[in-house]
């Protein structure tokens, strides 16, 4: 079964704690987005799942098997890199066929699979070009195509749309979501763009400073943020935040009034207070 489980994942670079105690559970066919500002540890977490970084503590399980000590090439994963990582000396067709060489398939079958995937992502016209001569959007599609041509345990996307312009992003968001829905693999997408996360993910894990602030469905993240950070991060324009003084409880709601004096207490509860507290 294509699943990813991460327990208490931690990563230290020297003295610096990059990722701390991260727990994730991605089911087969589910798309989980790691969302957060630059430097929050999301890419490092992804790389640890891929095996491109070693873990300082914690466990990574792919398809139920512990993989901490296993090299990326043995984990049977597919990854789409932020810079696409297309092999510059190979044509698009050769790039797409590259991952299949390991499976020792006959060339005819490889060609078949390549043209099928190319069709899906509208790359048939550029199959014989070199990556250096592709437009940004085309490169991105080749990167995705190269990942889905295989039948791996899971998909890992590292900021896949960050290099595209706004229009392309819109189109690609939908396209990728469609493709992922068709395959039933656990997928982790790393992004700093909330719009991406809200549209593509089944669940979002908001991260900050190496820790997960909240994991929930996009709807829940949006309407029921757990803390000020998540509340402030999600939503364009930003959610309105108002300092208030707690005056009492009413069933599942609370009473509050606007402060008349400057508040001496640090504000820790957002305005939509009844949905947060009454849990």
């Amino acid at each position, binding site marked *: 079964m294509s699943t990813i489980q991460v327990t208490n994942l931690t990563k230290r670079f020297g003295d610096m704690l990059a990722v701390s105690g991260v727990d994730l559970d991605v089911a087969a066919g589910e798309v989980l987005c790691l969302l957060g500002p630059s430097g929050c540890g999301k890419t490092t977490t992804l790389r640890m799942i*891929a095996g*491109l970084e070693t873990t300082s503590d914690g466990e990574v399980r792919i398809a139920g098997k512990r993989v901490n000590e296993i*090299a*990326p*090439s*043995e984990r*049977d*994963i*597919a*990854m789409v*890199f*932020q*810079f696409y*990582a297309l*092999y*510059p*000396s*190979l044509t698009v067709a050769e790039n797409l066929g*590259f*991952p299949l*060489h*390991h499976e020792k398939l006959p060339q005819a079958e490889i060609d078949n699979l390549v043209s099928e995937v190319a069709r899906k992502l509208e790359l048939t016209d550029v199959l014989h070009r070199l990556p*250096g001569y592709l437009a940004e959007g085309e490169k991105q599609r080749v990167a995705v195509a*190269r990942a889905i041509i295989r039948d791996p345990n899971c998909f890992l996307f590292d900021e896949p749309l960050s290099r595209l312009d706004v229009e392309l992003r819109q189109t690609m968001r939908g396209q990728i979501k469609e493709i992922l829905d068709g395959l039933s693999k656990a997928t982790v997408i790393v992004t700093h763009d909330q719009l991406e996360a809200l549209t593509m993910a089944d669940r979002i894990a908001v991260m900050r400073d190496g820790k997960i602030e909240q994991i929930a469905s996009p709807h829940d993240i949006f309407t029921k943020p757990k803390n000020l950070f998540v509340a402030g991060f999600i939503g364009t324009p930003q959610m309105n935040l108002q300092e208030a003084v707690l005056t009492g409880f009413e069933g599942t709601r609370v009473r509050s009034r606007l402060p008349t004096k400057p508040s001496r207490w640090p504000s820790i509860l957002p305005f939509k207070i009844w949905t947060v507290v009454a849990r």
Partner: protein
Amino acid sequence: MRDFWQWMFSPSRRGPMLIAPALIMLFVMNIFPLMWSFGLSFFHYKASSIRPPTFAGLYYYEKVLTDPVVWERMQTTALIVAMSVLLQLVIGFALAMMFEKKFPLRREILMLVLTPMMLSFVAVGVFFKLFYEPTFGLLSQAYSYFSGEPLTLLATQWGAIWGIVIADAWMWSPFVMLLVLAGLVSVPDYLYEAAEVDRASKWKRFITVTFPYVRGLLLLALLFRTIETFKIFDVVYLITNGGPGTSTETIAVYVYRVAFQFFKTSQSSALSYILLFIVIVLTNLYLYFVKKRGEEG
């Protein structure tokens, strides 16, 4: 006065004005002598005689191009160039692979390997001659330790050629190493990562990811070293002096002899021009590939 300067350096003139001194200097010191000796090559002239030059037309060019001695020298030169450059490429590449990693004292150890490039030709020539010397030379002594006989490397043509090739390759392999190293280091990490995720074998990784980056620089190294080795003079002159006999006389040494020992000034000029032509063709190639590399990068 100020107006004069302003006129001199007005925007439209600025480019040419800035370049002018350099071009003038190059012209006087390089191009003009070139033209002079080019002109000379069409006249009968010997630097040693006081007879004024008389017109000769293409006489000397014909002489040079049909001279079997010249062709023989070209062959010798081509052989030495081929052997030395090949050796340089192989050794340079191997050294680059060794220095690709980051290890303690890398900087210092790198200096050890770079030193051969910093020696003057005289030093290399003279001391390698000593190394090859049958009685006192280190090489010979090592050889005789194992075989009981001294090694007279420079006495045979092949031995002498190897002697030159080894000295030259030793000196310049570090140059190739630097270029290859630059190529190796410029490969982006994520390409290797993608290849790993794609489960490519080590060999495939090398062919698909590493080699394309290194290929351009290797070519550059090849061309540059070929041009330079083609002109080889000092090392040959000092180690073998063209010997034994004239079997290791490279084209540059031959020109020198013709000009300064035989004083056949016009003839040497004609020959020099043919050499120049070859060098220009090769330089053109070099520049072409440099441009390509610049665009790739």
